Each structure stands twice: as C-alpha cells, then as structure tokens.
C-alpha cells in the first residue's frame, strides 16, 4: 500500500516536470487567416528562438503548417516570466489548463521523457532510484515552479532544491551543489553537450517508468476558425509523418536510428487521448 502511494507520488512529480514543457507548447492566437501565431517558452532543444527553425518542435510546427498552406509564427516568452507569474504556482495540477481554459483542439506533435540525472564522479557507487524513498539522502534539483506537494516531500525527508533553468541544474550538479536532477532527457543532453562536451559520459541518466508525456499544440476555443485551423494542422501533421519529413526532423535531434521506442505509438495514443478531451 505504501509502495503504491509512493509510486503514485513519484509519477505525480514527473508529470509536474513534464507539464512545464507542455505549457510551453500552449498555442496562441493566429494573427490573421494564413498566419498562425503560437506562444512557447524556451526549452531547448524542443523550443528555442536561437535556431532557424525554432528547435525540434518548432521545425515540426513549421513543416506541418507549411504542408497545408499555413504560415506558423512562434513567439517566445522567457521561462522566468512563467515562473514569476503567480498563476503558475499551481502547475502541479494536470487539469489546471483544461479546467480554466477551453480549447478547440489539442494536437500532440511530439513525445518527451523525464529522467533523473546525476554526475558520476561525485558518487562512488551508481545510483539506483525505483521508489520515492530511494531519493532520501540526496539533494534533488528540479526546475522552479514544477514542484507540487513540496511539503510532502520535505516531510518524507527528501531534500529538494529548485533552479531557475535547466542549464543551471546541470551546472550545479557538476559543481556538486545538487546530487540528482530531474529533467527532460533531451533537454539535459543538449545542455550537457553544450556546457560540458568532454564529460557527456560522466552524466548518468536513470530512466523512470511512465515518465513520458506529449508536447501538444492547444488551439484556443475563441479563436476564429479554430476547428478549421485545427483540422488543417492535424492534416499537416499527418502529411509530414507520412512523407517522412517528421522522422527526419526528430532524428536530427535524437540521431539517426535513435528515436525512442514506441514514439509513434505514444504519439497516436496521446492524439486519441487529447482528441477525446479536446
């Protein structure tokens, strides 16, 4: 019974972390008929304003829009603004956006996965985490604003420390300020490669079950022609999956042949899930 409860809380923790990315995919209003404006937050490599195609998801959005004759524009809001906004304090509730906002459609376009990461040279033995109790004795880093039920974790004797960016989590881990970091796997890898290219192998990833989630586009209900745009975007996504464009984009970030297993199955499952909810 206790184990079940712990597992549930563990997943809850992951979902909170995932949600940050999901929110970053919140779709904004299209400015005019042929141009669809999206809002997102910096979450390299998924979303970034630095690269030409706005990261992996940005490339997918541009490609699927283009395939159906739309022009996508992505406006980035800094993650800091999101964190400082009080309205985001309750991010741990997965139904928050669904309950407070109405969407015409939710279109999953990618999958991401959260992992626990640690810096091997600071630890004599490999770390194994299967249950929440296993985190006891470690200082765990997590992105600020993604923590729910902090008091519960504190009560359970788990020492958490929040950071303002995913890069900071990696850097702090490297300096020994935190022992473990809960991060989106692809984001963490990008950050490690960027800052510590020679120590990529020293950062170890602990896989977590049920820690994947969808990155989705959410079309506001009061958006004029919302259903028409949604249908077009769904059609565009289908087109680029079918013509291989989608796979190329994903492999560009994961590496050829390194796309996670069940990626497309998961994407289909989430499509069905949010299609129903939306």
């Amino acid at each position, binding site marked *: 019974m206790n184990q079940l409860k712990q597992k549930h809380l563990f997943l809850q923790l992951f979902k909170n972390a995932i949600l940050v990315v999901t929110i970053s995919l919140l779709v904004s209003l299209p400015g005019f008929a042929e141009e669809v404006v999206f809002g997102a937050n910096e979450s390299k490599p998924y979303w970034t304003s630095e690269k030409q195609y706005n990261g992996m998801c940005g490339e997918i959005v541009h490609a699927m829009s283009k395939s159906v004759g739309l022009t996508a524009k992505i406006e980035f809001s800094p993650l800091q603004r999101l964190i400082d906004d009080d309205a985001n304090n309750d991010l741990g509730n997965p139904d928050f956006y669904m309950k407070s906002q109405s969407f015409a459609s939710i279109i999953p376009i990618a999958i991401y996965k959260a992992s626990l990461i640690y810096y091997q040279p600071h630890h004599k033995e490999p770390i194994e985490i299967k249950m929440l109790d296993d985190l006891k004795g470690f200082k765990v880093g997590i992105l600020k604003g993604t923590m729910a039920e902090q008091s519960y974790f504190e009560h359970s004797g788990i020492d958490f420390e929040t*950071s*303002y*960016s995913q*890069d*900071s989590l990696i*850097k*702090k881990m490297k*300096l020994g*300020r935190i022992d473990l970091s809960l991060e989106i796997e692809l984001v963490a890898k990008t950050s490690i490669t960027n800052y510590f290219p020679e120590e990529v192998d020293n950062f170890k990833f602990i896989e977590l079950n049920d820690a994947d989630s969808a990155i989705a586009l959410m079309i506001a209900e009061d958006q004029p022609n919302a259903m028409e745009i949604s249908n077009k975007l769904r059609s565009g996504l289908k087109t680029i999956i079918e013509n291989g464009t989608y796979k190329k984009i994903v492999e560009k970030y994961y590496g050829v042949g390194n796309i996670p297993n069940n990626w497309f199955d998961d994407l289909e499952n989430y499509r069905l899930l949010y299609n129903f909810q939306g």
Partner: protein
Amino acid sequence: MYRKSIKLRIVIALVIIVSGSLIVSESYRYKSTYDQATAELNQLCERIITRLAENLVLPLWEVDDNWIRKIINAEMRDRQVYAVTVIGNGDMFLGRKRDANWEIVESKQETDPSDYIVHKKNIIRDQAVIGTVEIFMTGKFMERRLKQDTIAEISITAAIIILMIIFLVIMLNRIVIEPLYKLMDAVKAISQGKYEHEIDASQKGEIGMLTSEFKFMQRNVLLREKQIKESQAQVHLLLDSTAEAIFGINIQGDCTFINRSCLNILGYKDADELLGRNMHEIMHYRYPDGRDYPAEHCHISQAFKNRKKVYIDDEVMWRKDGTSFAVEYWSHPIIQDGECLGAVITFIDISKRLETQKALKESEQDLAITLNSIGDAVIATDAQGRVSKMNPVAEKLTGWSFKQAQDKLLKDIFPIIDASTRKSILNPVEKVLRTGETVYLSNHTTLIAKDGTERQIADSAAPIKDSDNNVIGMVLVFNDVTEQYRLREQARRSQQELHDREKEQRDMINFMVNAVISINEDGIILSFNTAAENLFGYSLEEVKGTNISRLMPEPDSSRHDGYLSNYLKTGKFKTIGFGREVQGLTKLNQIFPMRLLVAELPDGADGKRRFIGSCVDLTHEKSQEQQLRRTQKMNALGKLTGGIAHDYNNMLGVILGYSDLLKSKLADQPKLVGYADHILHASKRGAKLTKKLLSFSRNDPTEATALDLNKILLEQQDLLQKTLTVSIKLEVDTADDLWLVRLDSSDLENAILNMSINAMHSINAAKNTKRRAFTIRTSNQVLNNLDAFALGVKAGDYVRLSLTDTGAGMDEATKEKIFDPFFSTKGEGGTGLGLSQVFGFVNRAGGAIHVYSEMDHGSQFALYFPRYRENDTETRDDDTASKVNFSGSETILIVDDEEALREFCEELLSQEGYQIFSAEGGKKALEILEHEYVDLVLSDIIMPEMDGYQLAAIIQDKYPKMKIQLVSGFSDERHKEIIDDNLQESLLYKPYSSQKLLKTIRNLLDTDG
C-alpha cells in the same frame, strides 16, 4: 599726497583681504567638497557592492552567467563604475570592465586597483561563502566636475570683487575724501577767527555727524565768547544788587572791590572812596565796647592767615559818620594755585534781628507761664513730631519730665492703646503733621504712662502753623477721663445685661413647645410666641395689638370681652390658675381642641393689668382617645359576635360534614346528590356570614400573603367602575415603587368593594354635587411617633390606601358608629357588617383607619398597612384541590364537646381507615391517653372545664412525641400563651370541609417529630 594715501591704502587693503579670503575659502571649499565627494563615492561604491553581493547570490549559485552579466550591466549603467569581477569556486567566474571608449566589455583578467576606489564583498548563501564580487570605481568624473565648478566660481567671485572695488573707490571719493577736505578748510578759517565761515552740513552718516559737530562747536565758541563778556558785567551787577554787604581785600587788608550795599551800609557814596584803602582801619577799628581793635587781632584777616573761613556774629562795624552797628560776617580766603591772594568779606547788619530775638524770648517766658497754669495736659512738638514744650500736667500724666521728653518723638512718650481691644492706636502727631488738620482721639483711648499707669484720656491734637500757613509743629491737649470712662462702661454693661436678659426671656417663650400669648386687660394681644404662630397660623405682626377673641370660635369669641370684664370686676375667672379645655380658631378658620392655662402678670408699664395664657393642642390626643374607644368597643363586640359565631360554626360544621358524607353515599342517586349540594351551598353561605362576623375581631394570619396594593387595585379597577356605574368617575392614582404589604387579598378586595359601594351610595345621596368622583390613591408613608400615636399604631413605614368620595359626608355622630357591627345608614338595605369587616381586616393586618368627612363635601377613608419587608413566598391551603388519598391506619383521639361534630369526625376518619377514640372533654381524653397509644389528638379549643389549649399543654408535657391538631370556630386568646406557636399557627378553623380535615391530619401525621 594725503588724498592718494587714504584711498590707496583702503583699496590695497581691500584687495589683499578679499583676494586672500577668496583663495583661502576656495581652497578650503575645494578640499572639503573633494573629501565629501570622495566619501560619497565610497558610500556609493559600498551600496553597489552590497547590492551586487545580495543580487548575485542566486545567479552564482545557479551558475547562470547570463543572469550575472545582466545584473553587472545594470550596475554599470553608472559610468563611474569602471569594472566588476565575480570570483566563484576560487576562479574568476565573470568580469566586466570599460574599454578605451568607456564601453562595457568582457574582462578576462583582474583589474589593477591602483587608480580606482575598490570595494570587495563575499557572496554568501546559507552562511557559506560561494564567491566574491569586486567593484572598481573611478574618481576622474568626480574630480573633473569639481575642477570645473571651482574655476567657474572663482571667475564669478573675482569679477564681482573688481566691480566692488571700483564702486568703493568712487564712493570713498564722494562720501569721505571730499567732505573731509571741506571740513579742513573750515577748521582753518575758524582757527583764524573767522567764526562765520560757512560749513556745508548736507552730508549724512558719520561725515555728516562730524560736520554737524563742527558746526555745533563753531556755535559754542561764538556763544562762549559772548557769555564771558556778559558774565563779567553780571558779576558786577550781582554784587551791587545783593542786600548783603560784600567787599574784598588783599593780603595787606586793602580793599580790592566793594559792592553797593556795603557802600550804603558804611555810609559811602562811591567805591573809589574805599578801593585801595585798609578796610580794618576804616570800619573795624574798635570792639563793640569801644576798645581799640588792633589789626593783628582782626578776625577778618584770620581767614587768609589760616586759610579757613571765619564766621563772627558778636562784633560791630563802624560807619563813615562814626556810628557802629552789630554785624555777623563771613571772611572767605581767596586761594588761587595754592596761593592765598586775600579774602572776600560778607556781612549783614543784625541790629534788628537782635531786637526781635529779645522780644521773642520775653514772649516765650509768657507762654511758659500760661502753659503751666492750664489744667489740661499740653504737649507741643516741632514739625518732626519731637517734643518742644510740655506743661506740668502733661508731665504728671505721661510720667515724663519735660527735660526727659524734650526732643523725643511724641509717640515715644505718649503711647496710647484702644481701651477695648488693647491694640495700639495710631499716634495723632503723624496725622496732624501730615494733613494739617485737628484730630480728636476716640473715647476709648488709654494712655500708658512711663511707670505703666494706664489712664483713660480725652484729647485733641491741632497743628501749629506759621504766618504762611505752613505746619511747623503740633500741640496736643488732653485730660484724664478715667473716672468718667469707668462710669460710662458700667452703664453700658448694665444696658447689655438687660438686653441679654430680655432676649433670653423672649427666646424661652419663643422656643416653648406650648403656645404662649400675653394680653392686657382690654384683651389686646401683647406677645405671641413661635409655637402660637405655628398653632394659630398667624404671625406676631398680624395679631399684635389686636383682640384675643379672633383666636376663638363662636360663641367664645363674642363673649370673651364680657368674661374678661367680669373677672376684672369680680376677680372670678374659670381659667385663671386652672387648665381648661376650650376650642381654638386658626387663621384658616379651623377649629381645634386645646387646653388653656391662664395666669395674671404684674401690671404693665401703662398701668394696665396683664394676663399670660399657655395653649396645648389636643387634636392628636383626642384622635387617639377616639381610636382607643373604638378599639375597646370593637373588642367587646368581637367577643360577643365571636361567641355566637362559634355556636353557629359548630352547627355548620355538622351540616357541612354530613352533607359531604351524604353526597359520597348517594353517588348513584343524582337527584339526592343535588339536594345535598343545596345543603352544602347553604352551609357555605352560612360559613361566609359567620366569617364576616368574626373577621373584624379575629387574628387570622393564615390567609395573609405579601401583596402589591397597586396590582390588586388595577386588577379590580374594571369591577369597581362597573359597581360605581358610569355616573361616577373612578380615579385610581397609584404611587411608583409602592412598598409591599402582608394582607389577605380577598379581605382587601372585599374591603375596597365595600367602601366603593358605600361611596356610591353617599355620592348618590348627596345634594348639588357637581363633581361625582371616587378616588383611590396609594402612597408610601413614614409615620412618626406623633402621627402613629394618633392612629394607635407603632411608628414606622406604612402603605397608605385612601378612598375619597365627593358624597354627602358624615356628621360626628355617624362617624362614631360607622365601624360598629350591624350599624347601617341604609336602613333595611344594609347588613351593617361592611365597615366593621373592613375595620377588623385592617386591625388584623396591624394597620389603622383614619376617617375624615365633611358634611356636603364628602368623605375620605385612609387605610394604613404596615410595610412588609420579607420576601417569603406563601401558599394558601386549597381545599378545592383535587381529591387525593388521605387515608391512614394511625390512631386518632377526637376531643370535642359538640357530640354531632365529634360523631361526624369519627365517621369520616373511620372511613379513611384510621383507628378512632373520642372524648367529650379534656379530662376524658387524658384518661384514654393513659391506657391507649394515640398518634394524634384532634381537639376543639372551646370546651367546658378544660379548653383545648390546656389539654394540649398537658399532652405536650406528658407525651411530647404525640401530635396535636387544634380546631376552633372562634379564637379565644385566653390560654394561647401556654402552647407553642406551631399549634397556634396550624389552627384549623370551623367550619371545615371533610377534605381539609383529612388533608390537615394526613400532613401532620406525615411530618417528622
């Protein structure tokens, strides 16, 4: 030369001072401003480094270089910040500095601190140092700004100074230099004797003042020149004008000057006759007696020989014609620069003065003789109040001889005090000398002689004035009036004693409790004390001088003069020497009973015979007597009616009891039950009638409860109004916070109803009654001893219930009988028991009734009930309570001389299961008790041979545990003191219902002990 010198020196001095001051002040200011700016820069640097150390905690912990860069850039917006470096984990984490164009660039190396203000601070997180931040501030901007400010300030100040110097030179020329030269020219002219030289005084300020002073000096020089000339002429004129003879001599005694008076006195016409000649040889050559007066002895020449002033008044001088005259002269030495040059001699012819002095001396001798001959004491003083004369009488009275007193202040030898208060009196000398008026001493002045002897004196002091009316002294004349004063004081004391005695007598009469009136033989009132004023309602002023008959009702009023006349003729008067009950008449025409005692006084000053009368008000006494009579009558009637009622009650008890039994036996025959009910109803009516008979004489506390009269009245108001009918207005006036009383509420209701019905009959019977009203009023009353005595109750707190009608009223005869049982004014229509019932009820409550009535005006019944103070709650027996089980198996002894009643009790109690013994009297009962055990004795009180009280006392003595219930149809108090209060209080009154008897017995058996 001078012109250049003054101006130049002032200008040079000014330039030096101003320039020096400017340099010093600017240097100082620059230095202090620089220090202040440097300090401020340091403070700024400290603030920035503190802010950075705080703001960088999180970014450095988060290892976020972009964040750190943004924070540093924000602080470097101040261009005085040259560089900021952040050290983390021992290495330089991030550095920002300025390039040659002062733009912010990345810094990889540490900055040389020598040219900057450097502050360093640790970055601390959770009390651990995670890095350091260092800031480099440049002072070059601050210095540049300071230099620019200083140069600008010096330039402006220098320009202002130059302008000021130019202006100063111009002003110096115009205001100082030019006027000074003009003054110099004027001084030169004046020094040359040109006094009229014009000096321009149009200048203002100090130069103007200097010019004015010059002009003033010029005028003074001119004036003094003129004065010297005039002074010389005046000296000559003065010397010639003076009446005194003046001449001067040199050290050889030759005349150097001589005035006109001197020439005239000596008989010369021209000064030249004497100037240069030896004056001693001409006019001072012989003594008064004719002997030669050698020059070497001359006193005049002593002045310059001894260099001292000489005064001589006993020599003579000789005229030109060889005659001499007495003189007094002064010879003053003339000393100049320490050398005696001669003498000035002033002399006066004193021949006439000597003659006057001689005459004055003769006059004084005459005055002394006169003074010594006067019988009064006389003391004269000078203007300072010092004794100058004193005659022998004054010496005797003051005890001071003239020699001792002379020149002493009058107040020292003439001490006077007030004879009454013995306080000092202001000496007359001061007032007379001050005011110049004659002063007379008061009659009570005592003079204390030198040897302490005190004498009463009468005196006066008058001023002595010269021919110009100036006060030059005072004369005090006084004589010894000690004897006269003693006699006068004696007379005054006698007068006071007489006055006091009269006042005492007057007070005695006025404060007497009894009214005291004195009259003369004509019946005219002479005195009327305060008690008389209170009794009759007149003031002394109203009755004094009027006839005493006004204080009497008819027929005494008309007959009084005759009584008095008869007495004066025969000497017989019933009242003289005896107390007699008569009637008095007040100012308000109210007649009251009083006891009058008259005595004859000695004849008055007018020779008429006088009488004094003492009057005692008998109103309260009469009222009390009336009350007593009524009470005695009621007691007698009570015993009479009580005896009858007892027999009735016994009979009614039998009827009631058997009716009850009959009713219970005939339960299945309704018709017969109806008959029994009729018997019961009639019996109860009979019982009520006997209760009324008894109520005015019986002491029955069992029904009394604490009551609020107001509440009863308000509850009864509707019923009363209906009783009175609409033709009579009922007015109920209840007092607030009315005290409680302890009464039988039904008795009270009956009483009010009775009196209301009486009032209605009285109002209806009244003739010409305009107002038909019946007023009931309640109030709290505190009865004092006197009021309570009149009502026949104890003094204390009472509730007063007054019932007033506007009916026909009652005469005295009716008033006497209204409370008698069976007395009625309604003929056959009344039972005559109403008011007797009220009387009994009020008496039983410990209260009283006061009746006031006036024929054709109405009546008032005032009922007084004692205030009830305890808060005990009481419950009444309720024999109408539903029937409950009162049966028992105890043994009861019934004692009653009434056989029927005894049998009824046996029947009733046997039916309820009790074991019964019965006895017809006390003796039989005691016999039974000797052989049988009995739980309770039920005994009648009134029985032949031995009554219930006596029987109870014996039983309590012999069988203390045995319970006793006494029963009576009439409470006789003959033996009640021999039983305890409990038996008395629990007395059962006949006739009683079977329920009440059973309940009483059961309750008594169930009580402990």
